[in-house]
């Protein structure tokens, strides 16, 4: 089954590149984020999901070393952000919710600045910038001023500054917000590619984005980490397609099927036994099964329940 609950803070397969423990941030005495934990490994893309104001940006800014946590610690490649700030920050790339661009600099000038700030050695800087420009699809605008770029290119340039020094850990705050579908697709492809070699934590309030990109999701609610799940998630329901029309009652009579509901041409089954066993019983009962798969939309249900506090359905994670 696609759904498996895991406690917050599970380690990645080959040791965490980014670790956070008990992070807390307060503003005017009020906690905005409390008890945040994370272990992020190489090759992982983890989504940070929450409604507006849930604390996603604050969390990412603490992880990036931009905001000081009132409590807790962040370690990047084993370097404590407070005790070894330079080494820790060297391994981080951060795209804030608003790309931190200089409108008066050209794309190339800006990336050269970003590379210098991230201490890419002078001899390697030009190659690093050229490689990043190509990777982020900025070639045709490399001599344009950032202030003249479209929203999509600005976002890509923001992403480019976060990866120009090839950091092991990449933090992205709403990387596709305000992009059109084509731009969104291009940026997602880039993030997916980055996720193969690096560790990526991205925040979003777009469920589709998290489902499309991430292997794991964390859900924040009012500054607290309320859930952490592997993806994809199933909703708990299973979709059955048959080669020929079948009476609903025949399917309902099969052992292990708790309920059946018609969903257009397909049937939605709620199970009370292992799906493999139910499938075998369906076939044994002479049902002409064409496909039998978990129903999508699990993340949406989880989000509604965990992030908004709406009551869940039985069988959902």
């Amino acid at each position, binding site marked *: 089954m696609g759904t498996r609950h895991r406690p917050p803070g599970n380690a990645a397969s080959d040791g965490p590149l980014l670790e956070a423990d008990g992070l807390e941030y307060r503003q005017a005495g009020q906690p905005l984020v409390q008890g945040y934990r994370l272990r992020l490994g190489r090759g992982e893309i983890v989504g940070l999901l929450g409604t507006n104001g849930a604390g996603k940006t604050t969390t990412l800014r603490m992880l990036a070393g*931009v905001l*000081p946590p009132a409590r807790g610690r962040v370690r990047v490649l084993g370097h404590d952000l407070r005790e070894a*700030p330079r080494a820790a*920050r060297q391994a981080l790339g951060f795209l804030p919710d608003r790309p931190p*661009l200089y409108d008066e*600099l050209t794309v190339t000038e800006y990336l050269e600045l970003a590379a210098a700030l991230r201490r890419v050695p002078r001899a390697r800087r030009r190659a690093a910038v050229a490689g990043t420009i190509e990777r982020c699809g900025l070639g045709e605008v490399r001599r344009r001023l950032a202030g003249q770029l479209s929203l999509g290119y600005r976002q890509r340039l923001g992403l480019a500054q976060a990866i120009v020094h090839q950091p092991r850990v990449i933090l992205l705050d709403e990387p596709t917000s305000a992009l059109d579908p084509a731009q969104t697709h291009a940026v997602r492809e880039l993030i997916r590619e980055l996720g193969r070699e690096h560790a990526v934590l991205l925040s979003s309030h777009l469920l589709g984005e998290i489902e499309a990109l991430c292997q794991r999701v964390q859900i924040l609610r009012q500054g607290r980490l309320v859930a952490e799940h592997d993806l994809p998630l199933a909703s708990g329901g299973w979709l059955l397609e048959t080669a020929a029309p079948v009476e609903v009652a025949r399917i309902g009579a099969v052992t292990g099927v708790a309920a059946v509901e018609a969903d257009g041409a397909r049937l939605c089954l709620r199970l009370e036994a292992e799906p493999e066993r139910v499938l075998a019983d369906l076939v044994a009962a002479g049902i002409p099964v064409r496909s039998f798969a978990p129903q999508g939309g699990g993340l949406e249900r989880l989000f509604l329940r965990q992030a908004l506090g709406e009551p869940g359905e039985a069988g959902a994670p």
Partner: protein
Amino acid sequence: MILTLARLELQRLLRAPLAWGLLAALQFVLALLFLMYLDNFLLELQPKLALMKEPVGVTETVIAPTLTWATLLWLAASPLLTMRSLAEERQQGRLDLYFSAPLSITELVLGKYLGLLGFLLIGLLLLAAMLASLSLGTSLDWGRVAGGLLGLFLAVAAFQAAGLYLSARLPQPALAALLGYGLLALLFALWLAGRSQHDPSALFVWLSGVGHFLSLAQGLLRLSAVSHFLLFATLFLALTVHRLDRERNG
């Protein structure tokens, strides 16, 4: 790293219409004042020089007052230059770029400050070229000219350090500029109050620094004046570093 940041700051200033406009306006006004003092020297003072016991030269009558005005005008222009340095970075969310990078706050502040000083140096070179043009017709007291230019540089540089601090403290550039003008007014008010005939205060005059820059503009390079401005600049740079460091590291 500091030089990279300084170059960026200077590059930004040189690409901003506001900074260019200020530089042009300052140079224009100073050229008018310079010509006015020169005219005055040629028409009023020169015919009388032979009759004077201690004849004055162009250095005292043209260059010194021009430098005094130049200092005043640069002081007045400074809040418009320094307001952007950090307040605009914060407003545009660009402090995140620096705070997340492996660089220290001291490097950031010194880089920004050196960039501002670079722009001041460009203005100073233009002014120096204008003043040096007098040497085509007469001989100048180069020591006093250089002393006056150094005085201008020190006074404005010190005030720009205060402007940088305000820019670090405030969320909006306009607010930083406004408070910069408030500080300038306060310094002059202190100076005036300190020189009041009823209740003079040497402390107020010293604190204001105005007397120092007036003496420096005359080309009188005094250690007390130089150390005053160096102290002033160091204090505000340290405060700027402290402020940003608290914001980043708690």
